[in-house]
């Protein structure tokens, strides 16, 4: 099965970001595929490395990047959400960490191409 994952919460606002990452890892290790991750609303902060520089708390940005590269799926950052939150050129910021900006048409195409859509 192809699973599309939406992440809507910031790395510090809840534990759901880590749960989404673990979920994606389990999808892959169980023999299914992730066809992309869409970072929406406060989820766009996952594209900003070093966001959670707190002792004992994992930096999810590089973990997402690592998984996406090894499994060849895209990390899509919602363009509208990012532009509302990041001053200046959010595309540059996203690029740096292996994420890319996406519009809602692209989002809906990934939803349609997946067998399941799940949101964290």
């Amino acid at each position: 099965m192809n699973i599309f994952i939406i992440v809507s919460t910031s790395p510090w606002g809840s534990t759901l970001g880590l749960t989404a990452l673990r979920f994606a890892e389990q999808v892959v290790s169980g023999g299914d595929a992730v066809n992309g991750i869409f970072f929406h609303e406060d989820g766009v902060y996952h594209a900003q490395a070093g966001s959670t520089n707190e002792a004992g708390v994992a930096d999810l940005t590089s973990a997402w990047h690592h998984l996406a590269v090894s499994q060849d799926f895209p990390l899509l950052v919602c363009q509208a959400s990012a532009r509302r939150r990041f001053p200046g050129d959010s595309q540059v910021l996203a690029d740096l960490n292996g994420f890319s900006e996406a519009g809602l048409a692209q989002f809906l195409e990934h939803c349609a191409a997946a067998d399941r859509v799940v949101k964290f």
Partner: protein
Amino acid sequence: MVEKAATDLGLVIHTAPFAQRSARTQLDIALAAGVLEMSMEVFFIGPAIYQLVDGKEPHLAGLAGGMRGWKTLPQLSHIRCYAECDWVQRIDSSRLMLPIEAVSGPVMREKMGRCNRVLGF
């Protein structure tokens, strides 16, 4: 009798209209789906129905406008909207930007289950 094709997208809206301040998240997704000519059923849960209330003055609270985009959806694709009876009853229907079917939870659940894809926001 020809069997009716399933609706492409079921959109479940369950947060307050301006929960992320711009309030456009749900509308923008509906518009994007409309442009792609996806048929839609939109399910408004609780105060989400205030998305469709016309006559808002968002500038009074520093909010962006543009909510009237809901009105343009029927020109893009097939759309049906549902909301909970008790919420709809309290709103003057002449203030709603799209026709709403006031239904019960079980009816919404049934219709939702028959959509090809369901997204909740």
